């Protein structure tokens, strides 16, 4: 589904990604872990071109996305993203946050879009918040709305960029529960996270990134159980 070949990304002179090769299959949940500054988020943001790729290629469903001929807006319709800071639109209520993209981009009819929004709100357990504004919600609720908003475009892939890192501890679970449900339903997911419990439980595969490369990858039991790389061992000993 996603195929990444020797991906390089530099910010000025700072090289953040130094040759990433990776393949993500349909319905797979891939968790990306690693220390801060290892390039995890940049890697994720390259997948929907929020970051311009310096070198290498990314294919989604066989289409090279970092090609000037590719319409990136078409690609992004199929790739949902959830941000650490939620990034809900504060000037719209929850319902409009969710329906704006289907209505404007998918040209979905108002009634249909609202119907879809309520279905998604039910899925994330927030049917009663449709009329609320983001400022009236807790962090956990905002992040669940953000997930619903991304899902409203019916994406094939969901990217999560540290979705629980900005949350108070008691709200982490409600967001992770929604993500688990998505994983169970067979969504293709790439999750950058510090939640090792989630990675271990839900990940089909875990990538350990450090210094701009994938240092180690494998099933959760391989990476968490018998990490081969000394950097992985070192990292896991600090976080577990």
């Amino acid at each position, binding site marked *: 589904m996603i195929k990444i070949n020797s991906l390089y990304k530099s910010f000025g002179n700072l090289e953040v990604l130094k040759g990433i090769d990776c393949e993500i299959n349909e319905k797979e949940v891939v968790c990306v872990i690693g220390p801060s500054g290892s390039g995890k988020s940049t890697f994720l943001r390259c997948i929907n071109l929020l970051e311009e790729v310096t070198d290498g290629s990314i294919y989604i469903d066989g289409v090279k996305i970092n090609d000037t001929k590719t319409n990136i807006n078409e690609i*992004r319709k199929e*790739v949902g993203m959830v941000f650490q800071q939620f990034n809900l*639109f504060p000037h*719209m209520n929850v319902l409009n946050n969710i329906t704006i993209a289907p209505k404007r981009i998918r040209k979905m009819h108002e009634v249909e879009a609202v119907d879809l929004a*309520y279905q998604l*709100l039910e899925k994330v357990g927030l*049917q009663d*918040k449709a009329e*609320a504004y983001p400022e009236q919600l807790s962090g956990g609720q905002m992040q669940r709305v953000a997930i619903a908003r991304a899902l409203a*475009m019916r994406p094939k892939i969901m990217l999560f960029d540290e979705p629980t890192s900005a949350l108070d501890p008691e709200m982490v679970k409600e967001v992770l529960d929604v993500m688990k449900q998505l994983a169970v339903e067979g969504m293709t997911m790439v999750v950058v996270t510090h939640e090792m419990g989630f990675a271990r439980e839900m990940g089909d595969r875990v990538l350990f990134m450090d210094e701009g490369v994938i240092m180690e990858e494998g099933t959760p039991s391989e990476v968490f159980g018998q990490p081969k790389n000394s950097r992985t061992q070192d990292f896991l000993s600090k976080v577990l």
Partner: protein
Amino acid sequence: MDFLESIRFDMIWNYKELFIRGLWVTLGLTAVGYIGGVILGLFLGIGKLSKIKWIYYPCKYYVDFFRGTPLLVQILLIHLAVIPSIFGHSLGYFVSGATALMLNCAAYNAEIIRAGIQSIEKGQMEAARSLGMPKREAMKQIILPQAFRRMIPPLGNELIALLKDSSLVTVIAANDLLYASQVVAGAYQRFYEPYVTVAILYLLLTWVCTRVIAYVEKRYSNSYIPRRRRTFSFSRSSVGG
């Protein structure tokens, strides 16, 4: 009390039609200049955020020129040189005056609008783009509605500044508010009454503007929740569709 008794407001009264006309001219120049200035400023402000050089530089030089030269000079240049050389003759003080005020106001508004747009968190644009929105759509639906709220106070200041600066069009014989007082001053060779009157009239106008701006500011401050709903709690038990 000699001084008070010697004040002759009757002469203002004799020229009241000139003052009323002046009031309308001042308001007209300000309104046209400001509305045009906001619209043009919006394009210039967005242009100044462009990464494309042939968009960025013309916008930048435009703003630099109109902010870096006196409005008085701009008015004279437009009225006496630019418009006659384009149309072959003058189009009258109103066209020249309104054009100069608009072009000048646009330069200041451009900076306000640019700063307003830049003040919106980067994540908002990213979220919109990640949903597949084209940049223009994201700007229109997501960024500008938020940015405009932050622009209200500085844009309000700009309106008041423009209202006062519109008095400079007197130099091209526009019969605005200031012009009316000059006529009275010339006719009677008295200066307190006409200029105090015109000062009071400008003060009244700016006061009204200040009140309106304060109202708009209050209405759109702090919260995005519509006022009528702010006191409600949000319990909607039935799930509609």
